[in-house]
């Protein structure tokens, strides 16, 4: 979309080939079907959980995740299930965790805001705005010490760019040349506060200038644009040249939290954003470009719906964790029953 004035225009824009585009779409539709099912299960009263839908933001982690290896890491936030699904976290343990069951990724002790799955690189999910970034730096430092080419993506929202942790983390990452990509999913609202009422600069990417790193404002609803910028940022990180700030502009269709009445936005702007839904647009593009056919995409959607439904039924059949779990994982060593509550 546009580069901040201090940054060079992106050279050698990487373009996703047909297979990669299809992979991006696969991740997007997996996120969307999973999100739709989550809201449906909450509405039906089958699960009780705080839920921060990322409907509308599917493109960002999908176009980034096709560039990541399984051992590349992500640190994300409470509105982050789309980031995990894009990173190919298996849905059965994900759903069991959302349902608070013992077979969940965190044995039902974390819930939707703290899903963790190191096998797919989902290292930290935080419920604290801004806190994904300082921790991502530590993974970056570890990768440098290990001498690997591993990168870490720190996801956060536009509101998080106003908290101190963002500024401390970007500065340190730049001074230490850490292989971290800071990805701001700018959906226009910090909880209920409109972007311009809470953020002093018109583009968050401009904040990169103050920390001596490249910053780009990207069309977060365009998979090709996100891919090109993420490619450059990841290559830079793998080459040992340091971090990049990507501001991906998007819109969240379902408000801040499940049940939000969207009183802080106009009906018109929401309708306009939803009319510009990146998912059907990308689907049509894939068909128009001859990458695939409508039938193939419908079949893909069907397979994903089956995967989601399987995960839900699996989760619902799982046991709840035993009360002994309260004594476990406080420390590596289990707290003896006689000392618990003492």
């Amino acid at each position, binding site marked *: 979309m546009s580069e901040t004035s201090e940054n060079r225009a992106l050279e050698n824009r990487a373009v996703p080939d047909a297979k990669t585009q299809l992979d991006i779409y696969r991740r997007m539709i997996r996120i969307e079907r999973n999100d739709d099912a989550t809201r449906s299960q909450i509405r039906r009263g089958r699960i009780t959980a705080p839920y921060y839908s990322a409907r509308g933001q599917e493109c960002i982690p999908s176009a980034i995740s096709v560039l990541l290896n399984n051992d590349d890491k992500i640190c994300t936030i409470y509105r982050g299930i789309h980031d995990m699904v894009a990173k190919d976290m298996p849905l059965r343990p994900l759903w069991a965790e959302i349902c608070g069951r013992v077979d969940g990724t965190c044995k039902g002790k974390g819930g939707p805001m703290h899903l963790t799955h190191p096998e797919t690189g989902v290292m930290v999910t935080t419920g604290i705005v801004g806190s994904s970034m*300082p921790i991502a730096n530590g993974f970056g430092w570890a990768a440098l010490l290990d001498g690997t080419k591993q990168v870490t993506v720190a996801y956060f929202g536009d509101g998080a760019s106003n908290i101190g*942790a963002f500024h401390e983390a970007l500065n*340190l990452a730049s001074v230490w040349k850490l292989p971290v990509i800071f990805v701001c999913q700018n959906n226009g609202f910090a909880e209920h506060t409109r972007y311009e009422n809470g953020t002093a600069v018109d583009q968050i990417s401009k904040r990169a200038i103050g920390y001596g790193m490249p910053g780009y404002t990207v069309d977060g609803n365009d998979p090709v644009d996100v891919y090109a910028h993420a490619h450059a940022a990841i290559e830079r990180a793998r080459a040992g040249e340091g971090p990049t700030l990507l501001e991906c502009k998007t819109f969240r269709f379902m408000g801040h939290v499940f049940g939000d009445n969207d009183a802080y936005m106009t009906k018109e702007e929401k309708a306009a954003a939803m009319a510009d839904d990146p998912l059907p647009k990308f689907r049509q593009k894939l068909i128009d470009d001859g990458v695939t056919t409508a039938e193939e995409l419908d079949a893909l959607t069907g397979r994903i719906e089956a995967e989601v439904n399987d995960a839900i039924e699996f989760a619902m059949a799982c046991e709840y964790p035993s009360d002994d*779990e309260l004594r476990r994982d406080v420390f590596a060593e289990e707290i003896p029953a006689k000392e618990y509550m003492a």
Partner: protein
Amino acid sequence: MSTDTLDAPVVETVKMNGLQAINAALMEAMEADPKVLVLGEDIADNEGGGVVGVTRGLSTKFGTMRVRSTPISEQAIIGAAIGAAMGGYKPVAEIMLMNFTTVAMDMIVNHAAKLRFMSGGQSQVPMVIRTLTGAGNQTAGQHADFYEAWFCHTAGIKVVIPWTPADFKGLYLSAIQDPDPVIIVESGKTLFVPMDVPVNQGPIPLGKANVVAPGSDITIVSYGQMMFTVMQAYEELTKAGVSVEVIDLRTISPWDKETVLASAEKTGRLLVVHEAGRNFGPGAEIAATAQEALFGKLKAPVGRLGAPYCSVPFAKKLEDAFLVQPPEIIAEAQRLVAMG
């Protein structure tokens, strides 16, 4: 002054202060285990090897990739330590002063301490936070507080406040290899007073108190630099014919209930002394636990001495009044002994 002097086997010792003992522990730990890292403000030799020199020599020996000076960014320091710890390393992060931990509370409390539990045991955060504090040097309200109660109240982080150089060495060696986050508080005087340290001082387990002096009339529990004050009172009380059992708690959370309660049961009287505020301080927890466990067996109520409910003052006269002094400990011990 030396601990473990009674009935202890003769061991070869060397005189060193706490600062040297911590430096020796870090040197040893880094040498033995390439996963041990050190980070914090001004800690590398280019920046002077730490504000009081605890980390001097480390970066020269192990390089600035393992011993990294940081910007003045406490959240970034603890965040980097958490990530590195989860990435397979054992970072020792210095927060220059305990009051500055407040700037990083989200990272310490919401993340370092909780990630293991919230992830159902998948995340390990084996890191040490080093921090310095203590009144007595007229550094006033934002450079001298003992905030250990805040961390003791947080499940998932261990709290260690050593007194002797030998304990610093041994407890650091344990903390660095501990699978969970540990905060170690270095309190002013404990860094600078030389004592005997066994030449091959190895790890000392966390969670174990040290019975510094055996006695039969009253148990006094303390830790950190307050132990110096307690030992002055101990000498006076001994001269006055009061037999005091002195316990250096060393680890404040999880604390050694077994040793403290066994001692209190034996002497029938318990007095807890700390530099932290008396209100809601660790003494309150210890006193409550003692009355639950020993109701009817104690000859006097559990005594608690700590700082008054105010900020650390600047004026020397006020600072002296703020800190628990030997006469207060003596008077309180004698009052408890006289009760029955």
